[in-house]
Each structure stands twice: as structure tokens, then as C-alpha cells.
């Protein structure tokens, strides 16, 4: 009886997500905000409370985070990361300062203390590389001159996450300063080791998981990802970072095949992750923080555009290309929710943080692609107006 109910509930959730995904595709937006809304509709304070599948959905959402980060790591090769870092670190630092500050300041003003500030800084800092890459592809901008600039900023952000997440995990666990430094030390050491190993012996790591048989390959991949994530989590370095580093270490054709094989699984479990985050957020808590979320959205849209503008200008890209680069970076999504999820799960931050992060990501995941799409017509208007003024 219990199993039957659980299956019906799960089936309803997945089917509902499928319908939402279809709507998102038709409208041309990222499905993430709709998944979040779906999660809000169910669960605590929502329309339909779910019972008896919490254990499964919780574990599924954890696997979702591991797979999100594993596939992110698979996308990059170690050499891309190191050269990207060398070329874009100035833009990356500017990006970090400009976009982490609004979140931190907002949290500070709301009285959430240093832990809340650290978490909110991460939420507003990191662009959604998934949404950005998709939007650039859909708009046919991969061949544009500003696109490498955008991508290298994203690379920097993803590497910054590998340092930031362990720090956050340690702080949320309430460890002392020494414990926090140890976590950072371990993760920096791990990143260095992984980059060196991946650069020099990447094919051995790949050979370890590779197999011509799909079934064997899938099991070995998933097994190693969960093992590494679990061990990393045990060391307080954050499961997600472990998976990310494993993804970087796997390279070449193995990485391509792994991506192809894991993508459907990632989509499934990541959808579950967004739903669970929405489930655990009481929709009634959102309206009070909506004003702050809108203010944050406005400010951090401007700061991202500023970042992209500056980074593209340094590479000799024209004004229109600079505006495009800035607008492309606006979207926030999966990683902001990963960060907020970590913070909320620890119970060390104000419960309102979940509501603010949800509202913020709902806004930014929709606004990002729109900004990227309409920056050109808006730019044209400005250009024409300036020309007219010059003529007059």
C-alpha cells in the first residue's frame, strides 16, 4: 500500500515536471524557474502536500547536485581551465567583487549575520553556465567575438566555486577558523592535484572508468562519482566539489561519451533537486522578500552587464559586443540554488534565505535569457538616438 502511494506521488511529480518542461520549451525559457514553482506548489504550505517519499526525493536531489557538478567538470578539460584562468583572472576578480557584494550587503542589512552574507554572496555571484551556454547557442552567438570572453568568465566562476563551496560547507558546519582553513587547504590541494593529474595523467583516470560497454561504463561512472562525492563530503570539502573535480580529471573521448550517457540522468535528478528545494520553501514566505529580490535583481543585472562590458572591452570588442557580453552573463540558476540549498539544509541561516534565493532565481533565470535576446534591439535604439543627437 505504501509503495503504491509513493509510486503514484512520484509519477505525478515527474509527469508534472515533464509538462512544465514542455511549457518552458514552448515559451523559450529555462525550465529551472518552472521546476521551482512546481516544487512550491507541492510540499510544505503548498497545494498538495507529499508524504512518504521525502527520503527518496532528498537523496535524489543530492544525486542531482553531484551530477550537475560532475557534468560541469566533464565539459572542461584541465588545459582549458588553466589557460582560461591565466587569460581571464582580472575579469574574473572584477566579476567576483561586483556580483558577490550586492548579495552580501543585502544579507547584512537583513541581519542574517556573516554566515548568511557568505551564502547570499554566492547566490548573487554565480551565473548559470547552463542557461548562458544554451542561450548563446540558441541565439547563434557562439561565433561572436565576445563569446570567448563570456565563456572564460564562466570558467573562472566555476573554478571559484571549487574554492567557495568547501569554505561555505565548513562555515555552515560551524567549524572554527582553523577548521575552515583546513577545509580550504584540502580543497585547494585537491584542485591542484586534480589539475596536475588531469594535465599529465588524464588518460589513466579516463581509462579507469572507461568501457566500451554502455552498462559497465554507466555503472562505473556513477559509482565513482558518488564515491568521490561521498568521500569529499566526509572530508567536509562538499560533495559537489568532489564530483566537479572528478569531471575535470576525466577527459577526451571518455568525457564526451560520459556526458552523452549521463545527460538524461542529470536532467532527471537535477529536476528533482529544484523541486525538492521548492518543496522545502513555504510559498507564504516569498511575498515579504519579493521587494528585496527585485532590488537585488536590478542591481545584480547592472553589475553583471558592467562585468561583461569591461571584460569584452579589454579584448577589443566593440560597444554592441560589450553589451551582448554583459547581458549574456545576467542569468542565475542552478548554482545559486545549490548554494542556497546547502545553506538552508544546515539550519545555520535564516529561513527567509530560502525564500529570497527562490524569488531571486525565479527572476534571474527568466530575466537572463530575455536580457541576452533584447540587448541588441535596445542597443540599436541607443545608437540611433546618439547618432541623431550628433547630427542635430
Amino acid at each position, binding site marked *: 500500500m505504501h509503495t503504491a502511494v509513493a509510486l503514484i506521488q512520484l509519477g505525478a511529480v515527474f509527469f508534472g515536471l515533464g509538462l512544465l518542461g514542455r511549457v518552458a520549451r514552448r515559451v523559450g525559457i529555462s525550465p529551472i524557474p518552472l521546476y521551482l514553482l512546481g516544487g512550491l506548489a507541492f510540499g510544505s504550505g503548498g497545494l498538495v502536500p507529499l508524504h512518504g517519499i521525502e527520503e527518496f526525493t532528498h537523496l535524489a536531489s543530492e544525486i542531482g547536485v553531484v551530477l550537475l557538478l560532475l557534468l560541469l567538470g566533464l*565539459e*572542461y578539460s584541465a588545459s*582549458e*581551465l588553466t*589557460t*582560461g584562468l591565466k*587569460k581571464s583572472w582580472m575579469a574574473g576578480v572584477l566579476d567576483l567583487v561586483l556580483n558577490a557584494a550586492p548579495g552580501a550587503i543585502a544579507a547584512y542589512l537583513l541581519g542574517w549575520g556573516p554566515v548568511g552574507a557568505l551564502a547570499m554572496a554566492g547566490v548573487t555571484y554565480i551565473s548559470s*553556465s547552463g542557461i548562458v*551556454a544554451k542561450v548563446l547557442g540558441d541565439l*547563434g*552567438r*557562439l*561565433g*561572436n*567575438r*565576445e*563569446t*570567448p*570572453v563570456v*565563456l*572564460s568568465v*564562466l*570558467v573562472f566562476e566555476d573554478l571559484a566555486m571549487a574554492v567557495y563551496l568547501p569554505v561555505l560547507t565548513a562555515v555552515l558546519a560551524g567549524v572554527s577558523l582553523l577548521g575552515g582553513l583546513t577545509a580550504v587547504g584540502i580543497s585547494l590541494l585537491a584542485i591542484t592535484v586534480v589539475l596536475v593529474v588531469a594535465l599529465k595523467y588524464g588518460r589513466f583516470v579516463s581509462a579507469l572508468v572507461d568501457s566500451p560497454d554502455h552498462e559497465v561504463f554507466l555503472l562505473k561512472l556513477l559509482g565513482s562519482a558518488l564515491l568521490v562525492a561521498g568521500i569529499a563530503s566526509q572530508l567536509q570539502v562538499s560533495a559537489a566539489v568532489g564530483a566537479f573535480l572528478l569531471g575535470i580529471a576525466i577527459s577526451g573521448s571518455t568525457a*564526451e561519451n560520459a556526458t*552523452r550517457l549521463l545527460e538524461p540522468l542529470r536532467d532527471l535528478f537535477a529536476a528533482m533537486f529544484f523541486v525538492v528545494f521548492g518543496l522545502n520553501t513555504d510559498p507564504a514566505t516569498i511575498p515579504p522578500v519579493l521587494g528585496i529580490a527585485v532590488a537585488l535583481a536590478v542591481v545584480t543585472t547592472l553589475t553583471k552587464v558592467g562585468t561583461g562590458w569591461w571584460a569584452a572591452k579589454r*579584448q*577589443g*570588442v*566593440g560597444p*554592441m*559586443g560589450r553589451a*551582448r557580453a554583459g547581458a549574456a552573463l545576467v542569468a542565475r540558476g542552478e548554482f545559486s540554488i545549490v548554494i542556497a540549498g546547502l545553506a538552508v539544509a544546515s539550519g545555520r541561516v535564516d529561513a527567509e534565505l530560502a525564500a529570497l534565493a527562490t524569488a531571486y532565481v525565479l527572476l534571474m533565470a527568466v530575466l537572463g535569457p530575455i536580457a541576452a535576446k533584447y540587448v541588441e534591439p535596445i542597443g540599436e535604439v541607443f545608437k540611433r538616438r546618439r547618432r541623431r543627437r550628433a547630427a542635430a
Partner: protein
Amino acid sequence: MLGERVPHRIGVGPRGRPDRTETDLSECKVAVVNVEVTPLPGIGTRQDFAIRAGRRIGVITYRDGKFELIVSKQDDPDATAASIPLAPEEASTLAGLLGAPQLVAQLREQHREVGGITTRQLPVTAFASRALGDTALRTRTGASIVAVVRAGVAHPSPGPEFLFDNGDLAVVVGTAAGLDAAAEILTGGGG
């Protein structure tokens, strides 16, 4: 710039001095174009160059082997006016169409002194994954295949064991009659 410039020689034959970007037509045609190679982390590689008309033109190679032909806008060289996805065989056909005439022009130049001999590019459609030796072209027509152009790359002096592929263009030297017969054989008309 993020990319690095790699001089890319188009065509085979006598190499021009590397420092010159163009040679006059009296010498054999070897032009050097600076192709900019830019890594696109997580996506692939962009290779492009500025053409004389002012636009950028190039190719994005995705990591999974797909190609995209890109052409920049006239008024905004940073933006792409078109990005056209090409399947591998389409890309190699396009490359062959663009690359082969160059090669033929060069060979024609070289063979000008020999009367009655011409060079022509012929599509190979009847010998996919069969060896060049199977055509028995030399014995049957007196014409010889001096190069095979595949995906824009010329394979000079292919041996009898050379395996043809779909979309290959053979550069054939011979008499006019021999070339007609060769065209028929390579496209399957002559068996």
C-alpha cells in the same frame, strides 16, 4: 585577442616564402591567411579569419565533431550574421568544392607546357571505401589521379591502396578523351 594566429597555407605545390602574405599570379599561387584559433571552453574551437571584404569567416568545431560555418555581420564584425550547422559529410563536400579548383588551377599551370594534357577535378561516387587501384584508371584511360581532395585537404600522389570515401574529388591529369572516360568510370557510368 584571446586566440592565437596561425598562418595557414592554402594549396599545395611550391611553397612561397613564409613572410609574404600573398604572391603575384605569375608565380605559383600560394597565399597565406592568418587563421585565428580561439578555444571555446566547454564547447569546442573557433577558427576564423578576416576576408578582404571586411567580414570574418570561419568554422566552429564542436567537441562532438559537428561543424558550424560562421560568417560575421558586415556592420558589426564582432557578431555573426549566420552560423550554419554542417554534418561531417556536408562539411567535407563544401571543403572539396572550395579547395579542389585551387589545386586544379595550380596543376594546369604546371602542365601548360605539355601540349594536349589537361587537368580536371572529378567527383568519385562509384568507389566509396574501395581502393584507388580498383579503378584501373591508368590502364583503361591513360589518365592518372595525381591527388585526391577530401574535406578540403589534398592527398597528393595517392597510391593504388588509397581508399576512396564519399565526397572525394579526384584531380586527374590526362588527354581530353582520357579524362572523359575517367569521369565516366569514377561516377560509375563505365562500370
